[in-house]
């Protein structure tokens, strides 16, 4: 086990994250993202399970059109990179450990159910807004796009309201 190191100061971490995001704009012309990867996985998986329905679907159809592989995209490689980078960081800072986390008041099956429900809402929501906290909230706002800040208002507004209402689960 590596020696446990505390997390970085939040403003230092933010400054480094800002430089990584700037580098991404310089290299690619767009920012960082995340929800495009589960979207690509959903299209690829649906195309295996129900190819006819997937190819006829208005949203997923073009991603698998003509035998195209939706997984072969910049965002999929980026998210694979995110997992590798986070793995290295967790290992070197002594925080790599298999565990099931969640509200202290919830038992293991409750935690799994909450994580799954939250993921479903989030995956659906990211398609509604055509971007998530990374692609729209962070990268969109870094271009000073109105859309980025509209997203963040909805995200923090509803998130804080739900967070305060569920405060007792975390006692």
């Amino acid at each position, binding site marked *: 086990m590596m020696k446990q190191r505390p997390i970085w100061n939040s403003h230092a971490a933010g400054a480094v994250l800002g430089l990584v995001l700037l580098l991404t704009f310089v290299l690619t012309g767009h920012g960082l993202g995340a929800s495009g990867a589960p979207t690509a996985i959903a299209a690829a998986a649906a195309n295996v399970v129900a190819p006819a329905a997937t190819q006829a679907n208005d949203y997923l159809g073009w991603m698998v059109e003509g035998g195209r592989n939706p997984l072969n995209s910049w965002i999929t490689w980026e998210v694979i*990179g995110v997992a590798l980078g986070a793995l290295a960081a967790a290992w070197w800072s002594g925080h790599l450990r298999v565990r099931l986390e969640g509200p202290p008041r919830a038992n293991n099956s409750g935690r799994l159910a909450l994580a*799954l429900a939250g993921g479903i809402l989030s995956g659906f929501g990211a398609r509604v807004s055509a971007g998530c906290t990374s692609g729209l909230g962070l990268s969109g706002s870094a271009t000073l796009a109105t859309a980025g800040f509209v997203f963040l208002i909805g995200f923090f507004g509803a998130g804080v309201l739900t967070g305060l209402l569920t405060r007792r689960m975390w006692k």
Partner: protein
Amino acid sequence: MTFPMGLAGPISGLVCGVLFGYVLQRGGLGNGCRLTAQLRLQDWTVFNVMFTAILVSAGGLYVLELAGVMHAADIFIPTTFLWATLLGGVLIGVGMAIGGYCPGTSVVGAAAGRIDGIVFFAGLIIGVVAFAGIYTPITPLLGAAAGPQAQTLGDLLGLPAWAVLAILTGVAAGVWWFTRRSAASPAITCAD
């Protein structure tokens, strides 16, 4: 040399992703305890990291454009679809308060060994399939109240970019000042 370079291949994806994942984990943003503590207003790490990153990146883009080596027209600026943009934010905010993560941070949490992070990510895939299932009937909602193409806050408010950056810096500094005690609250103990 002019930027952006227009890279779209696996190498640039992996490089940007590795750096992104490393910083998110070391900044404490792969931890559902800390992410939801922000939404309970008990820990301000998420706000400070995100807002600082937005300002540094926006400031860098401003300088590169001022120097004439990069042009705003070559950068992807998302367009507002008022109801869809807002509703997506609402669902992702509720999803984080309930499930602990957002799409990117669930990958970070999962990579550090969190089973709840893996389950959250599986939920994302289900959510996309559900969306695809009702996409056709909700198309009018998704495109409703569209703003001008690639509109920035400067366009909206009729202000130059440097003034928008100055106002946002003031907001970030103000929030940090008023929350600096709870940012270091001993009531919250989230390891990483």
